[in-house]
């Protein structure tokens, strides 16, 4: 039987604050299959951000093993993790993290410049344009973040996360800075990416509405998995799923 896309076994993470050890993750074991859309929820301090950093290969667990796409991550060096982040993981952040004064097209192309296997400029440009068309920003490729609304910025970030065709996309509070209407817009986008491209999506959130749009909800509490339930996802609405490109900038 093939290994699932993500397999965690007894992941522990302890931070050292002065002389005190603070255990944040206290033995997490779970599997996530390809094509799933999962919400990672829990009260603040439950360890969901730390788990997300571990899953995203930004952090290294104190102990335990983590398999991502048939690769044991905990044994990798710093550069090895950088390569995995580049090839297998896309990130979407709460605060968008777009480069200032850089056009949407360049933002989306940026991760490709760190890809070891040479991608020609033309190929990179074509991919970025396709993705921007997919997220409904075909008219705004030359706009800089200050010329885009919050929802548009987050859609640029989603396009950037997908440019290297990763099997998994992590979204850390992707709607935390958005109003309820654009929240639905972004959620619809994520659902579409999950359904049409088959990309596994893991959303960290404390917002029950966001969590309700996924098919599986993993709840953490005090560094342990409290519950892991399958659910019928809410649909983010057809109108929001195809946002009008001429939507006014915020």
């Amino acid at each position, binding site marked *: 039987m093939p290994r699932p896309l993500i397999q965690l076994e007894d992941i522990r993470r302890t931070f050292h604050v002065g002389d005190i050890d603070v255990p944040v993750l206290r033995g997490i074991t779970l599997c996530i299959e390809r094509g799933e859309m999962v919400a990672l929820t829990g009260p603040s301090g439950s360890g969901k951000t730390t788990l997300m950093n571990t899953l995203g290969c930004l952090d290294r667990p104190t102990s335990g093993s983590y398999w991502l796409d048939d690769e044991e991550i905990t044994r990798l060096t710093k550069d090895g993790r*950088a390569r995995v*982040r580049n090839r297998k993981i896309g990130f979407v952040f709460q605060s968008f993290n777009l480069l200032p004064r850089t056009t949407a097209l360049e933002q989306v192309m940026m*991760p490709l410049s760190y890809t070891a296997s*040479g991608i020609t400029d033309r190929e990179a440009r074509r991919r970025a344009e396709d993705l921007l068309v997919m997220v409904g920003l075909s008219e705004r490729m030359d706009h800089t973040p200050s010329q885009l609304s919050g929802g548009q910025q987050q859609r640029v970030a989603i396009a950037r996360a997908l440019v290297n065709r990763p099997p998994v996309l992590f979204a850390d509070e992707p709607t935390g800075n958005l109003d309820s209407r654009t929240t639905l817009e972004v959620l619809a986008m994520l659902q579409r990416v999950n359904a049409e491209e088959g990309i596994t999506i893991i959303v960290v959130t404390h917002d029950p509405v966001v969590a309700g749009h996924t098919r599986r909800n993993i709840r953490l509490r005090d560094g342990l998995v409290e519950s892991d339930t399958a659910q019928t996802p809410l649909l983010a609405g057809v109108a929001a799923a195809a946002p009008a490109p001429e939507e006014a900038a915020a």
Partner: protein
Amino acid sequence: MTFAKTLRTALRALRRNITRSALTVLGIVIGIAAVIAMMEIGKGSSGAIAKTISSMGANNLLVLPGAAASGGVSFGGGSTLTLTAEDCDAILRECPAVKAAAPLVRARTQVIYKERNWVPQSIVGSTPAYLEVRDWSNLTEGEMFSAADVRNASRVCLVGQTIVRELFQGRSPVGEEIRLQSVGFRVVGVLSQKGANAFGQDQDDLVLAPWTTIKYRVSGSSGSGAAAGGSASASSTSNSVFPGAPSVFPATSAAQALDKPMPVRFANVDQILVAAASSPEIRSAMAQITDLLRERHRARPGEPEDFSLRDMTETANALSSTTTMMTNLLLAVALISLVVGGVGIMNIMLVSVTERTREIGLRMAVGARARDILLQFLTEATVLCLLGGLLGLSLGRGAAIIVKQLLRWPVEASLEAVIASIAVSAAVGIVFGFYPAWKASRLDPIEALRYE
């Protein structure tokens, strides 16, 4: 990440913050501009100083005949008559390190103009090249005598300022006739003021005439009575007296020439004054002249030379120490200003790293390795410094040109300064960009992403 991509990313990042980039690089721009302007002005002035000093004779070499000896008794330097005007021509023709050469014949006698008389410090017979050798080309009045005057032993002369004062009481002497030992000379020109030389000798107390005239008509003291009157046939080796005239004797082969003893030279000159092409070439000029004259005078290997060579070591040393000091001074000032500029770059790059912490975190999150970040910031600093260097270069050149136009200072473009300033600005970028870049590459992506 390939170099081209790194470069493009760096350029894009610099353009994103164009005002700050410009202000950051200002230190380097001013530093390089100052260096270039000072190098050009400095080089110009030291060139002018070198010219002044070499007009004092720093580049001059003096070829003297050797000492005659009889029965172990030396008669001292200059007692043989081995140098000829042809030696002088050959030196000029065959020694590449020689700029000009002039034969010298000296005399000391009374000069009479109407009812006044005067004994000049020096009465010199030479060729038109004398002025070039002495770096004395601008005449106050009249013109130099010609090569034809030398061939014909014409009775023409130039006089120095002291002569003008003493004999002519300041009136124009051109066209007047003066007498040296009852030989009348027409004054054709007046030399410009040169003043005293390093030993307090008045250089303007001079009468300059063709060497043939002085030798055959005035001094007559060098045992060349047979040649007096300018009879060319008496001159055994001089064909240049009548150029184009058919040779009376059949041409001798080299072997014949070597076997033949040197004839007595009636057309000898007292000294040959040589100007080296530049002060560093004095040594090679001396070597070339020695080789040439040994060959011409048929000195066998091991045999002592029948001539001696003198250079003006003291003045030459003064010249080179002046230039060295000037260059070192400029270099010190340049280094200080570039270090100051570099510290400015480092400062702003550190600020920039702090300000762009989130960008660094994001780049790391999407797969940039520590090395990629290091290279990116290092490239940014280096590109910034190089651009600053280029800008400074053009500003410095502009400043030098303005100085030349407005202040009439001598200015000389310096390729070394251009190359050095480009290299130095790149080096400043690498050295002072490294610490901020290293700091950036050591950031933890999680903390960098959360940085506010």
